[in-house]
């Protein structure tokens, strides 16, 4: 029984690059997130020290949210760039054919 996706789109050859990039970005976030959890768990007092007029807990917490937004923008920028590159290459290949 066929149960593949109905919506058709062309595989443009950028998947492998995007998957690798996704894993790298994921690890970049995970390291900082694990640091946050461990700091909260093992040294909660350190989270109370003053940083930028507030404290480390607030700066790190807000920082994690903002960090996610920044990584998301970079990821999309690089993926879109690759997709555009592949589109040019694929078009050239078709023209050669």
């Amino acid at each position, binding site marked *: *029984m066929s*149960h*593949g*996706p*109905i*919506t058709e*789109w062309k595989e443009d050859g950028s*998947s492998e690059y*995007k*998957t690798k990039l*996704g*894993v790298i*970005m*994921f690890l970049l*976030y995970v390291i900082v*997130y694990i640091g*946050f*959890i461990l700091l*909260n*768990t*093992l040294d*909660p*007092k350190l*989270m*109370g020290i003053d940083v*930028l*007029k*507030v*404290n480390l*807990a*607030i700066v790190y*917490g*807000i920082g*994690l*949210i*903002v960090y*996610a*937004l920044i*990584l*998301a*923008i970079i*990821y*999309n920028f690089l*993926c*879109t760039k690759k*997709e555009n590159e592949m589109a040019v290459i694929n078009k050239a290949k078709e023209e050669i054919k």
Partner: protein
Amino acid sequence: MKYEASTLAIMIFLFIVALVLFISFYYSRKGKNSDDYYKAGGNIHWGVNGVAFAGDYLSAASFLGICGMISIAGYDGFLYSIGYLAGWIVALFVVAEPMKKLGKYTFTDALDSKFNSKGIQFFAALSTLIVSMFYLIPQMVGAGSLVEPLLGIPYWGGVLIVGTIVIIIVATAGMASTTYVQFLKGGLLIVFSVIITIMILNNGISTDPDNNFQNYHDFVELPITEINGDVITLEDSSYTIGTSFKTETYWFVKIMIDSKETIWEVDQENNVLKETLFITNKANGDTYYNGAPREDAQFYLVGHMSEVNGSETGDTGSVGVFEFIEQIKEGTVVLWSTKVVHDGDDIITIYYQHEVPGSEVLAPGLKFKVDTDKGATIFDQLDFISLMLALFLGTAGLPHILIRYYTVASPAAARKSTIVAIFAIGFFYLLTMFMGLGAMVNGAIDLSNSNMSAPLLARGFGIWIFAMISAIAFATVLGTVSGLIVASSGAVAHDVMDRFMGIKMTDKQKVMAGKISAIVVGVIAMALGILFKGMNVSYLVGWAFSVAASANLPAIIMVLFWKKTTAKGVVASISVGLISSMTIILLSQSVYTGVYHLVDVTAPMPINNPAIISVPLSFLAIIIVSLLTKKKPTELQT
């Protein structure tokens, strides 16, 4: 606390309901086939889909629950915001594009795309239903409890209204109407959260949080002349001290004032009696709030600072974003602790004040016990890590979130809509800190129901914004419930009836099967909502995240990244994840105390959050079983 239903709130509520119904009937004329029903034709713009993601994800638990938790537990409540957002990183970087590529209507399709296995079809559908039901029940209970005070409609009426409207949304146009309802709700929620945050900053912080039309109760202290053993003499001799509730750690006394019963905390250090709030559960089932029936509105709102700007009568005037947090950190916040005492056959819950430095409110430790210096054990610490793990891994395993990847046209659109979602949701979660802390210092906490903090804060700023926030809170429930019902109806009609059972249906019949499933799931959700009335069911959303992280995510990750994964491995992973996470939850202390009501019984499981054990178990299951059932590439798997 008693809430007056406002005409404006009812009018705005009716307007939003009318808008939602209009959207549903408008799209019902457009969509006819199963593509339209399950994935809105697969042509939703990624921007719209992204905001709809936010509308789907930001449930009552996010909006009401997190704001409420921050208002009573400070920074520890904000940890939920951080964990819930972090989950989207997994969704974006690991799951978004491959899910779109592999699946058709449901996440079961994606898991099963390489196998065509009856086992996967059944177990993934079962997992979808279990996770969705855990999510649905608190939404329905939330709907009933919200509508009761805000619109003056009885609890069961609220559940029926939500159930009926959601069934109409889903059964008319399926995912198309659901998407636009979620888009509408997500947009409104974010815009009005910004408005409230601006108002909080503009209002600033004062030690006397007098709001526009709700006078803040002035909590008083009675000077003590002498304490002799258990006998207290007050300066004002007209007060007669009654029953004492005294142990080594606390001391409360009853005093009759103007023939009204009051309870006071004895502060021996400062030689004063401090006013408390209390709820009395009588043996005959009646409940009294501060000694009076609920209608008398004697159970005051709380939440203030006792020292602002270095003064006991401080007022900051309007403040900036960081100055707001800094002012709380430098000041002193009055928080409320709870003690339950027995008075004959009556059970009295006493809420008493204690001052906490702002710096402690803004650091971890008020809710989660993680500091070993304060008596936290290794299990307390593991429990906390486990919760943060479940929040991180749960999001990308929630079926009602995953189905939204099929409403867009391409993997790139799936990625872009996830990024819009991260921005919308991340921005909203940043605002939860200001709304929660705003409620904490502006007298907007109802100690009998912390979920009302955000609407009550809005009420302090004016009736129109209160009416709007009430209507949005209701729309929040509609948006999330409709997403859950689409996911459940897909699991029943598409995964089980069409694929697993192999019932031959025309496309029209498939749509009809989806709609009938939606109606059945909706009716079951209404029944459960009424059945669970009065129960604190907020923990069910936590269960949903733990089960999704344990049963669904390991299978998704391994199918995507490990070529040796077999169908039997996937089935083993889902079932081991389901069973292990549920077993740990059902044998945990929080369920023993909160659900079974077993007093002084130690539960066998030392942690409440299962992810730290059940997620690795689920991964182990898929690896071991896949290796044991490895087949040659040409062989068909069953």
